[in-house]
């Protein structure tokens, strides 16, 4: 009897022990972009190493945001890993909705993550999401058109120079616009651009008491400069142009300059898609000499919702997908230009990657962005092209709609700023900040 019981106990123990190594199926919600789709293609490598299977849920960025927000705020448990950005991570981390990632393995080398990225994906010093790739924004310009205009692009130009260069490069007869910029309504579209641009003009969203600042001269200067330059040198209908519309214009040779996400560099230099692939130069996003440039900082990162049943397997996946080994894997199969950029210091120390034409400028742009200290005058929020508070997305969407209406000539800049001031103050008052 004793022997029989011992046998049962031993069998039970071995099953429990084996349970720790049981292959799981993890469900990952992610965004549809080139780097993420590429990662899906290498899922077999992860499965071969760990035995875990992966189910992908790929969605358009805005749909994804709504979907994962609904799930995590209701503790739905539909996903084991969520792809989120720098806006959501600190807010969700503070809410206790995410699993802390401060116990990643020594081989993973968390200290190798670029400090700007790690800072933006942490709350009170705890990392809540691991960056898969990071981006800033920079100037992409046509070297041939710049030369034709008799100008030379400095490495770190001012807005004044950009305005002059845009006017000089504009050739309406040949359908060439001196500059293409986002004007589309939406906090992540035109709202992100104008907020980052306003930092360089000395503007900010809020003072230290959370009062809206759209009635300041700095905001008027920002919007007036943008509108005057775009009216003179931008494409028709720029008020509705976002990333994709400008990418299309630039690839077809219809933009002299484009200031947007560093990730676009790989698109505009790809000869399969771009007619100007061999004529593109890069420079830092412009400033006005006040000490802040107009580049932003963003990362698509992988986070684990608290309460997931597959936390261990999810951590294994995150360690695999954001590791140095994954970068090596992509480089070996598809070349260094296709590795996910902007997340790890070691990538930029790699001599092979340094040969990629946009590598140096991407790194410099990322390093010059500081989400903790993004404005000339002090501000109470973290974030460059956003303020990391839950109310921001809703407020900024409304404000950017007013700005877009001004770009389209439906109202004046002064009217748009006055409305933005009222919208923001009312919302902040309702939310209890004021």
């Amino acid at each position, binding site marked *: 009897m004793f022997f029989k019981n011992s046998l049962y106990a031993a069998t039970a123990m071995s099953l429990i022990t084996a349970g720790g190594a049981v292959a799981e199926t993890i469900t990952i919600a992610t965004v549809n972009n080139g780097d993420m789709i590429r990662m899906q293609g290498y899922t077999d490598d992860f499965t071969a190493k760990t035995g875990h299977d992966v189910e992908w849920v790929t969605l358009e960025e805005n749909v994804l945001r709504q979907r994962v927000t609904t799930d995590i705020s209701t503790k739905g448990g539909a996903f084991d890993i969520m792809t989120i950005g720098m806006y959501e991570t600190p807010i969700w981390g503070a809410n206790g909705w995410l699993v802390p990632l401060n116990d990643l393995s020594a081989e993973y080398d968390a200290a190798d993550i670029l400090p700007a990225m790690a800072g933006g994906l942490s709350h009170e010093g705890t990392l809540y999401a691991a960056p898969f790739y990071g981006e800033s924004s920079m100037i992409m310009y046509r070297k041939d058109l710049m030369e034709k205009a008799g100008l030379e692009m400095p490495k770190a130009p001012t807005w004044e120079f950009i305005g002059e260069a845009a006017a000089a490069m504009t050739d309406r007869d040949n359908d060439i616009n001196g500059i293409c910029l986002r004007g589309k309504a939406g906090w992540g579209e035109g709202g992100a651009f104008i907020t980052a641009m306003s930092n360089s003009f000395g503007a900010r969203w809020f003072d230290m008491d959370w009062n809206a600042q759209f009635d300041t001269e700095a905001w008027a200067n920002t919007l007036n400069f943008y509108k005057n330059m775009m009216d003179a040198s931008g494409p028709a209908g720029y008020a509705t142009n976002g990333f*994709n519309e400008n990418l299309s214009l630039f690839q077809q040779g219809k933009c002299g300059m484009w200031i947007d996400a560093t990730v676009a560099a790989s698109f505009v230099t790809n000869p399969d898609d771009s007619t100007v692939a061999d004529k593109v130069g890069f420079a830092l996003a412009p400033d006005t000499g006040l000490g802040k440039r107009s580049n932003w900082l963003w990362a698509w990162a992988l986070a684990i919702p608290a309460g997931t049943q597959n936390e261990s397997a999810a951590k294994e996946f995150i360690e695999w997908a954001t590791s140095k080994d994954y970068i090596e894997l992509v480089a070996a199969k598809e070349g260094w230009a296709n590795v996910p950029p902007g997340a790890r210091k070691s990538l930029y120390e790699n001599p092979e990657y340094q040969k990629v034409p946009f590598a140096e400028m991407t790194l410099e742009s990322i390093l010059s962005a500081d989400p903790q200290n993004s404005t000339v005058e002090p501000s109470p929020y973290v974030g460059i092209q956003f303020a990391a508070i839950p109310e921001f997305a809703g407020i900024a969407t409304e404000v950017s709609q007013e700005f877009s209406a001004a770009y389209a000539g439906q109202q004046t800049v002064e009217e748009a700023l006055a409305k933005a001031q009222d919208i923001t103050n009312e919302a902040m008052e309702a939310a209890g900040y004021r």
Partner: protein
Amino acid sequence: MARNVTQQRKIINTAAAWAVGLLIFFPILWTILTSFKTEAQAIADPPIFLGFDWTLENYQAVLERSNYSRFLWNSIIIAGGSTILGIIIAVPAAWSMAFVPSKRTKDILLWMLSTKMLPAVGVLYPIYLLFISLGILDSKIGLVIVLMLINLPIIVWMLYTYFKEIPGEILEAARMDGASLKDEVLYVLTPMAIPGIASTMLLNVILAWNEAFWTLNLTAAKAAPLTAFIASYSSPEGLFYAKLSAASTMAIAPILILGWFSQKQLVSGLTFGAVK
């Protein structure tokens, strides 16, 4: 008295009808054409209509990346299941409203329709929490129930309209011959209303097939239908229009084919009772 229509008038009317039809169909035609272009040709300015090198590379890429058959199967089950369930509930409901009306029948019909006026997002969180409690998040049965409930007012309204056209005397005669309530509905009313029921089912299948709010928000990997398949190819950062068009074409092809073959039934059903 029939209106005397001249030959010239007929030609003008036909041409106008074709022009309107082509205008309505043009976005679908453009999507199909774009699906056979390269990404560079898809964004070409001026746009290329037919003079491009036709390629199947987008379809190949989509099939390599996504499990199309699983999305398709989920769509068939969800659209088909919600339609059948809806008809089972709506036929008796419409029968009672058409043949045994009460003082409040019109009010009930209007109230049912008024539920369609509520923005879906307004009840997203309650429904989501309910799904979590019932353990039916990301399940086909959950979506069958939700889509059935969403489309039920329209099904009841359509069937009610068809049933009103059927003379009540026929049902009375069946009752006098000893037919029970079940026999009356199943063997007398239903066969007479088959054209109306068929067109109602077809319309409901189309509505359920194209429903994108609930099917995106209540699914993850297991029960996601073709609407999620399309959403996975849309991107605000990257020009993947040709692949998106290929995915869209693959998603709408089954319902387009179904609509094409049943268009006579659909049109006659939808216009039934329009002229009184």
